[in-house]
């Protein structure tokens, strides 16, 4: 994980050897140490299992798993940016409108003007960045609360979308553009009825997880940090590996590896590292935790806030491309209420309303909980009105659970 030399003169090998037999097996201690995080994963597993039973296994079928990925990828992309915005103590209400605007710009260039598909993609990303810089300017340098700035942006960019599209829908996109959201990478390594390439990617992912996990473990032991026992570590890797390989198997048996899943996977990896390990990411947490203290610690608050919104704009642009590709066109009403889904994903995933707390992976789990629920209820033919109410309750419960945990942690000190 890092290239730092161990603090003591001990040889690397002995630490590696120690990694095989030290650590605690007290599962309760491990869970309570990380209750905020583990709670969300437990909830996720329960919800997946619940809908698997309620739909008689249909929700876990290869085709449906693929569908969930295709259907909700753009919400997950937005949730990555949104959780960073929320950790810093802001909010972004405009992302739905920005998704519509970036998709519309792309459609006008590619469908209207007949330009190549990749120019449309680049234009959408550039517009996303510009919108983000606009929001960042008002929030960071003028000092207007993000709620107001992005509420204005929501109206502003929706209006701009209508103007750009002249109030009509544009479609269809050329085949290459459609491939972004509905294409699959498969057949690269052959396979009989299933796609070997998908399985290989899954296996590489699991191997990476195991190796990285072991190196983190060795480093933690070197620095005298608590770790789980080796059998538990192996159990964790096997469990995660099994889930990932099952998921890959389902995809491989359907249509192979969706292109958007690769995009999403890369984004989650990159932003996971950025939030945890980069100076920028750490300053985001510092600003959200205590703005005044961060300022007096030399954090360039304005610059950090500015780039947070630029980043949100970029991710909105990516989501705009994926959504326009998936819907094979641009509509004036595209992306309506996406901001609320993204915000809900971040909060269900453990982000705190007051800022300073949250993780990208948590937001992904939060987004997937919403996705699996919506999808499951659709499969069951549950009425739209009920679906909306259930989602509302889940959001409320998630934040209540979070508050309850915080109070309990406070009482235990």
């Amino acid at each position, binding site marked *: 994980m890092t290239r730092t030399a161990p603090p003591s003169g001990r040889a690397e090998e002995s630490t590696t050897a120690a990694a095989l037999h030290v650590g605690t097996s007290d599962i309760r201690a491990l869970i309570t140490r990380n209750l905020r995080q583990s709670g969300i994963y437990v909830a996720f597993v329960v919800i997946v299992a619940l809908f698997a039973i309620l739909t008689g296994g249909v929700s876990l079928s290869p085709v449906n798993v693929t569908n969930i990925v295709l259907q909700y990828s753009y919400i997950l992309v937005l949730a990555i940016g949104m959780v960073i915005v929320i950790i810093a103590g802001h909010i972004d209400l405009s992302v739905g409108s920005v998704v519509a605007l970036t998709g519309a710009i792309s459609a006008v260039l590619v469908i209207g003007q007949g330009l190549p598909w990749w120019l449309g993609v680049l234009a959408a990303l550039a517009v996303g960045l510009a919108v983000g810089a606009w929001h960042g300017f008002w929030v960071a340098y003028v000092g207007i609360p993000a709620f107001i700035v992005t509420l204005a942006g929501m109206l502003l960019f929706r209006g701009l979308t209508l103007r750009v599209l002249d109030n009509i829908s544009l479609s269809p996109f050329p085949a290459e553009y459609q491939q972004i959201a509905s294409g699959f990478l498969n057949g690269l390594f052959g396979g009989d009825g299933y796609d070997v390439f998908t399985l290989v990617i899954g296996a590489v992912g699991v191997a990476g997880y195991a190796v990285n996990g072991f190196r983190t473990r060795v480093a933690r032991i070197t620095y005298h940090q608590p770790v789980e026992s080796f059998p538990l570590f192996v159990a964790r890797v096997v469990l995660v590996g099994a889930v990932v390989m099952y998921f890959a198997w389902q995809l491989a048996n359907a249509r192979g590896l969706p292109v958007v899943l690769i995009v999403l996977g890369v984004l989650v990896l990159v932003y996971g590292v950025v939030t945890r390990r*980069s*100076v920028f990411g750490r300053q985001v947490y510092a600003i959200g935790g205590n703005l005044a*203290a961060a300022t007096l*610690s*030399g954090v360039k608050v304005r610059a950090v806030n500015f780039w947070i919104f630029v980043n949100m704009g970029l991710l909105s642009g990516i989501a705009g491309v994926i959504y326009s590709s998936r819907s094979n066109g641009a509509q004036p009403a595209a992306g309506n209420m996406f901001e609320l889904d993204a915000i809900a994903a971040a909060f269900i995933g453990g982000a705190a309303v007051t800022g300073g707390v949250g993780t990208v992976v948590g937001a992904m789990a939060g987004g997937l909980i919403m996705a699996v629920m919506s999808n499951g209820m659709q499969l069951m033919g549950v009425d739209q009105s009920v679906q909306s109410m259930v989602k509302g309750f889940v959001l409320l419960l998630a934040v209540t659970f979070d508050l309850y945990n915080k109070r309990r942690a406070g009482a235990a000190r």
Partner: protein
Amino acid sequence: MPDVSVDRILEMHGITKTFPGVTALDDVNLEVRRGEIHAVCGENGAGKSTLMQVLSGVHPAGTYDGEIVFDGTPVRFAGIRDSEHVGIVIIHQELALVPHLSIAENIFLGNERRGRGRLIDWNRTNAEAGRLLAEVGLDENPVTPVGQLGVGKQQLVEIAKALSKDVRLLILDEPTAALNDTDSEHLLDLLRRLKDRGITSIMISHKLGEIVSVADRTTVIRDGHTVETMDMGEPDATQERIIRGMVGRDLDSFYPWRVSAPGEEVLRIEDWTVRHATQDRTVVDGVSLNVRAGEVVGIAGLMGAGRTELAMSVFGRSYGRGISGRLFVRGRPVRARTVAEAIENGIAYATEDRKRYGLNLIDDIRRNVSAAGLRKLARRGWVNGNEEIKVAEESRRTLAIKAPSVMSVVGTLSGGNQQKVVLSKWLFTDPDVLLLDEPTRGIDVGAKYEIYLIVNRLVAAGKAVLVISSELPELLGICDRIYTLSAGRITGELPVAEATQERLMALMTQEKEPVR
């Protein structure tokens, strides 16, 4: 007191209160006589606040063992309303006033004066508020928003609010912690007047001088046990005895001894002038001073003299407008226009309000320690998390931060340990000069001593330290040299050998041009 009655208004017997894993109070006894001012002393975490929370019903009956007898009858409070009903009112350290509401509205909040149709009778509300304000000696219009008052006056509003509830036992948790000397004196006078009217007070305080001057009796608590209750009229009831009881040992002195060996000049400020951040006035006016390596220099000044404004404006212009003047670090002219530039140039500033400006309370020790020097732990923008833990562990060890691990959340630590985290953060930036603004505010005697030891270690290592403090004995105890600041101007500079509290106070209150 002429007649020492043994008429007790409050008896708490064998109070034991446990939290998961901790016994906060263990068989504590407290007896308060009718009409006295009773001080409760103890280090942070000794259990004073918990005891008061048991008394006021914050911890309801049944969650603790023991018996409370109020005015001759055993009482069992289910909540704070019950205790207020019998006339026990607690005023917390963090005032519970709503800034945008008027004084009168705050006084009767939750206890509104109603007229016809259950609607609020504003005439009666304001008239009664006016009477209460006169009683506490606060000359303000009852319709003034509380947010426009200073902390001292807000404290008086809290007491007026207590009086509106027909208080019989008034509990004050560190009432003077945030007050300057004048406001403190005013408050203590008020307590004496209330005593004459028959209102009993319990006062929790760290300021031993105040306790000796105002309290009739003092109960000392240590580690959840009652140590002793002493009658302050007796000749041997001294500050030293209280301290011995609080820390369980004799402190040789409040201030650790140190060899004074100043080296070359590290910080020099010339003709430094700062305008107020929002108002049209000058808060720091042509200040020049210097601090040498291995030297502790103090700044003495009353509240509003511009002490914090001076330090923060030097620290990357984090306060004020229209800043002019010259700044030198190790003889080199320095432009520190942002906090980041100040840190780069070897300046560190530890704030007077660590909770609001110093710490990210929801994050752990590790990340608070690294907050200001994160770049030192990073290569090309990526933080080395393991190295960060190592740095934090080292701080925890060398500064003796009492916490289970560096992953402990800072908000759960005591004031003294939080202050050590703040110091760790600045030490990690490896500064040449540290500006310490009220470094021991709100922390107990034992932790204060440890902070002084840390300061001594820093100057022994060749750092320059500038200390701002409201407590003159502290400045006299730890500094080599003291500047006095009055209305934004330096009015004097004294080597500690020539300084006395009286001389400093005279310079601090001097209004016109400096006399050297």
